[in-house]
């Protein structure tokens, strides 16, 4: 079990990854690893919103983790929200990817999460704060993969036109470059002396 913490501004998420470990008979899959994501909110017990976020994160991770290399095992990813000041889902995505990297799991590509907020006047804000999210007309979160900057997951809250969504997507793909550079630099630093 290796915990890693990722903070973006004031929003902080702690990711702990366990596995590949032995899976319960009921949960094991014969040809691949069974991935489970647990998202724990800062206050209270996990509710329906956390469950839906867990499924979104699980499906994103399953797309990149090479589960076929570890059949009949269980990989558990526990995300603990330490503080929330906006852009929580993208912070969870980034923490999940860094957790997977840190634990050394085989991945086909990396991914990152970017949140865009569409203001009432049409301006697009990346990594919005909680206040900007509330005032926005729509909040979009994308999971972008590292090999071809393709979309792994897209979630929208609110309403926006097709053109606006495409613009947000292009901005998210540009922002993904910066985030992947951050991954690269932090890993470079981590393994530079050891």
């Amino acid at each position, binding site marked *: 079990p290796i*915990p890693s*913490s990722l*903070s973006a*501004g*004031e929003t*902080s998420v*702690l990711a*702990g990854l366990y596995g590949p470990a032995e899976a319960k008979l009921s949960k094991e899959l014969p040809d691949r690893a069974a991935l489970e994501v647990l998202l*724990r909110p*800062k*206050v*209270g017990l996990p509710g329906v919103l956390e469950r839906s976020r867990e499924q979104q994160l699980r499906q994103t991770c399953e797309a990149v983790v090479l589960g076929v290399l570890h059949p009949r095992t269980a990989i558990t990813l526990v995300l*603990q929200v*330490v*503080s929330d000041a906006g852009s929580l889902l993208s912070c969870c995505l980034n923490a999940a990817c860094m957790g997977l990297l840190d634990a050394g799991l085989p991945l086909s590509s990396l991914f990152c999460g970017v949140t865009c907020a569409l203001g009432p006047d049409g301006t697009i804000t*990346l*990594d919005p704060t909680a206040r900007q999210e509330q005032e926005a007309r729509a909040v979009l979160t994308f999971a972008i993969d590292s090999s071809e900057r393709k979309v792994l997951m897209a979630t929208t809250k609110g309403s926006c036109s*097709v*053109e606006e969504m*495409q*613009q947000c*997507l*292009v*901005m998210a793909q*540009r*922002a993904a470059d*910066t985030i992947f550079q*951050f991954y690269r*630099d*932090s890993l470079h*630093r*981590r393994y*530079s*002396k*050891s």
Partner: protein
Amino acid sequence: QVWQIRLDMHLLNHDGNITDAASIAGIVALCHFRRPDVSVQGEEVTVYTPEERDPVPLSIHHMPICVSFAFFHQGTYLLVDPSEREERVMDGLLVIAMNKHREICTIQSSGVVMLVQDQILRCSKITAVKVAEITELIQKALENDHKARKEGGKFGFAESIPNQRITAFKMESAAIDTNNVEEQAGEIITKADPPSEVFVNPILHTPGTAQIGEGIGNSWGDLEESEKEEAAEEEGESEAAAFECQKTETEDTSMMTETKKDEPILLSDSEEEEVVILEPQEVPRKTR
């Protein structure tokens, strides 16, 4: 009317002695917390939002801190603040909660060790020393946070992580190049396939209940008729159930009077089935 306070503790890493760590975390959280200000005039109670009036701290009388002791070999060996491995093999555990005024708040003994009086007294003296230094650390941390918040500096979990470690990496917020975003997005849309057909407009039954689409007609009643049909018709081939239903439906509609599009759409002509739409009752709003 009273305030209800809820303390959620999340265990991030277990390397022994969760009791002590949890007690420190809990009491610091309660000291750090600020609740909304309230004014009471007779029967009238006004709760101010954080924007109207600064939130006030809770009234904490004293800060009890737990200190744990692990015993080995029937009380011969004593370890303060045991780690996880030590906890697993210990014979007995003694937990003393004390505040900085040397008042014992809790004593809890468990395990298979029988303790002598002077052992417990010695433990309580060790506890007093530990609690004094821990309380001082807490006070300093609270003061630093208070100062940082007043002067506008950065505070919170992200800032408390030491940055000089090799396992920690920090990057300042970066600007993104947003030129030509609209043109690039426009290109993608023109190259992409046209979107699929838009759905029918929803039908509004009552406020809060809408219907999109017609749904499939009820095929329960058609089972008897399809049996009669099979007996009547001499088709030997057995077709898929879907086709049968469609056939019987089309025959039904030809028997019924032709419905114009303006009339309400009949989902099924069964008399047993009745669509009842529940109206939401006015639920009194609970203030949290």
